[in-house]
Structures are given as C-alpha cells and as structure tokens.
C-alpha cells in the first residue's frame, strides 16, 4: 500500500477538490493511503512530516520566499521530494508554474517553468510524472497514482492521457470538419475554433474522452477550451480566436498550414444543409 503525501504550494486548491470528485475514490483509498491531504482524513501537517511515504503529490507552484506550515516552502519541497520514491506534479501550477506565475515570475513547477526546465529538473526528472490541467482531472491523478512507469511525452505527461487533443471526442466535430463556426455563444451548433477562441485542436488532453465529472466537458457545454494543460497557459484574449487575415494563428496539432488551408477551402465550398441550421427545430 503506497503512502502518499499531498503537498500544496502556491495554489487555489482546485486540484485537491477535483481529486475528491473521483467517483471511485473509496476504492482507490483501499490501495493507497494519504498521510497528508488538504481535505481528506489524514495526519496533521507537522505529524505527517515525520512519516515515511512513497509518493509525493505536489499541487501548486514553488517559490523560495514563501511558507507552508511555518516552514520555508522550497526547503520543504526539496526535503520531501528527495525522500519520495515518486513525485506526481498535479495541476498546471505544479507542472509549469501556472496562472500565478503571471503575477510572480519566480514561481515555477517541479520540472518546468513554462516551457523551460526548472532548476529542480535534473534532480527529480527520473521520478516525476506531470499531470497538468487547471485543474487536473481526477481520473488522470488516479492514473498517475497507480501506474508507475507510463510512457511520457516531452513534458513528462503520460501519453495515454495526453497524446490526444481535447478536440478528440468533441461533440462539435462535424462542425469542425465542415468549417461551420458557432454563430454565437449559447448554441449547441457550431465549432468554437474559428471565432470563440477554442484551443482544443492543439491542446493535449483527454477531456472529451474521459469526461469531466463523468458527464461533460467545456466544449460540450459551449465553452471554448483554454489550453490549460499546456505550458503557455494562461494566455490572453481567451474568448477570441487569434487570426492573421482570418486564418487561425495556430493550426490543429501536427497539421501543416498548407494541408489545413487546402482542406478548409474545399470544406467551405460546400454548404451542408444539416449543419447550417439548428439541430432541433421547434
């Protein structure tokens, strides 16, 4: 039974709460034990610090001049991380520094500071798995707790979770295929990639494969994907697609611009009756 220490750095606690939404949590808790978790039953922080454990979960960004439980946080992190057999960085703050890095440039993640390697990279790269997301999906966290050696991508994200794009499985895919944009917010019809700023086609994540809270995802409820699993989260002008001369500034993952534009020109040449009107007529 692996013993887990859940350490919080500079965070909003979103990952702690997201994790509690894991519907199979009671079963998982039969296989792992939290010696410290910010919400779940566990030891007090100071008592937990005296314990041995196997896995360190880091939630939140890391910074020197900052305290947790009255201890200098970086020192705390280094001590616990060195002690841990494995480290799981949970949420984009622990993975890349995250949103609060916009306020304080010194904040960084366990292995990365945005796209750059952090100063802890060499030290912990061999035992760290990154589960980004704002927040991270509870099933992604559970996956990392159980699978010790998953195949990782360049940002140390498990490929089984992050080789997909958020676009894969989106219920609006037909509209993407035929380049039919959403005419407005609040409609079940239309693709959000052309006007509303959706980053799903080039964002790594399985949000539309492993649904959120087991029922939905941002794009399924008409909200654009904001690219929260990527090192450049959080960007600007989030509800508007960045274009150059009407052409999306970022292409779907791995698709060359010429290929994309050729296909777009062809797709746009047809008006698909079914996709140009409301799905459900009243």
């Amino acid at each position, binding site marked *: 039974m692996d013993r887990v220490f859940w350490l919080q750095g500079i965070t909003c606690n979103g990952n702690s709460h997201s994790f509690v939404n894991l519907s199979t949590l009671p079963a998982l808790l039969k296989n792992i034990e939290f010696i410290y978790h910010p919400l779940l039953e566990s030891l007090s922080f100071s008592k937990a610090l005296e314990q041995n454990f196997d896995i360190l979960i880091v939630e939140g960004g890391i910074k020197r001049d900052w305290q947790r439980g009255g201890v200098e946080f970086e020192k705390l992190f280094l001590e616990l991380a060195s002690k841990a057999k494995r480290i799981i960085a949970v949420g984009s703050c622990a993975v890349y520094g995250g949103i609060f890095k916009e306020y304080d440039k010194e904040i960084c993640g366990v292995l990365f500071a945005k796209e750059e390697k952090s100063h802890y990279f060499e030290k912990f790269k061999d035992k760290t798995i990154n589960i980004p997301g704002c927040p991270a999906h509870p099933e992604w966290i559970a996956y990392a707790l159980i699978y010790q050696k998953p195949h990782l991508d360049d940002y140390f994200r498990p490929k089984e979770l992050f080789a997909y794009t958020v676009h894969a499985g989106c219920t609006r895919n037909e509209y993407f295929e035929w380049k039919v944009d959403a005419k407005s917010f609040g409609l079940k019809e239309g693709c959000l990639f052309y006007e509303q700023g959706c980053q799903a086609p080039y964002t790594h994540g399985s949000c539309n494969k492993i649904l959120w809270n087991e029922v939905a995802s941002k794009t399924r409820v008409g909200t654009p994907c904001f690219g929260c699993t990527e090192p450049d989260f959080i960007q600007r002008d989030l509800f508007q697609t960045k*274009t*150059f*001369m*009407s*052409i999306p*500034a970022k292409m779907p993952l791995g698709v060359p*611009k*010429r290929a994309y*534009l*050729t296909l777009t*020109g*062809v797709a*746009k*040449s*047809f008006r698909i009756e079914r996709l140009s009107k409301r799905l459900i007529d009243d």
Partner: protein
Amino acid sequence: MARRSKEERKRQIMDEALRLFSKEGFFEVTIADIAKSLHMSVGNLYNYFSSKEALAKELILYISKLLGNEIRKINLQPISAKEKIKKIVQFYFYTAKERPELIEYFLRIYLSHREVFKEGCEGMICVSPFVTEIMIFFEEGVRSGELRDQDFFSAFGLFMGYLGGMVFLMGEGMLPNDIEYYIEDISQNIYLALKNG
C-alpha cells in the same frame, strides 16, 4: 507522332483547348474542333475527357496548380512581404503576357461562366491550390507584422481584383504601355494598401 504517355497527351489536349478557347471563344469551340486541331479522333479524345465540362474543370485545376506552384516558390523564399508582392505581380503579369490563354481562361471563362463549373468546382475547390498559397502569403505577412490584419477577402479582392483588372485592360488592348511597365507602381500600390500602420 511519337508515343507519348497518357499524362503528356492529356496536357497536350489541355494546351490546345486553351489556345482555341482563347482564340475562338469557349462556347464556339467544340470537342470535335479540339480533336481536329490535334489530328486525333473525337472518340480518342473522349478517352481523356468525358465531356467539355470535364475538360473545362480540369483546365481550371491545371491553371490553379500552375499558378499555385509558382506562388509557393515565392512564399518559400526568405524575403519580405513587400518583395513577395512584387514577385507575385511580376510573375502574374509575365504569365499574362507570355501565356495569355491561361489568365484569360481564368478571368473570362472560369469567373464569367460559373454555371459551367457548378458541379465539382463548388466554391474554392478548383482554385484551391492557388488560393491556398495566397492565403499563406497573407497569413505570414500579417504574422510577421508587415501587413495589416483584416478580413481575408477584403485583402484578396484588393490584390487579385487589381491584377485581374490590369490583365483585362491588356486583353482589351487598352493599355498604352507593355504590362510589365506597370509592375513597379502596382506592386507599390498594393503594398501601401496592405501594409501595417
């Protein structure tokens, strides 16, 4: 006649059709006229193109690829958008002068008789190789900050409408000078209209 591959033969038919369309007019020229001019049987020509409409479509695709390929070469060069504009204008006018049947077909037949192309050439399909390269030219120009961001079609219309208009004037014999005389000024005008700031 030496044995030619099917592709070469096809291209020969297209070149001849373009020449005849440009000289006699699209609706005047029949498949039989083209066959006759190439010393082939009508039946044999039908082995290559099942109808005049099919030939018409292949022609526009052929021209679009040809223009697209040249603009692509310009796009791939490490030069400024301003220089690219000049090269595109230069190439376009040069083509209009040396192979007027290509541009004429595009302007006078494809754009003027969309009914002929209504099936299989919807929207941008048959001109996609050309339009895609123009899109890439614009996109990269805006991305680098050299050109002003705007709707694609307002920029496309300005660029291509201008060039088409000049070639039209040339075809009507209304230009007092050789078309290449205008390259410098026109490139400058287009650049000034599209540049950022």
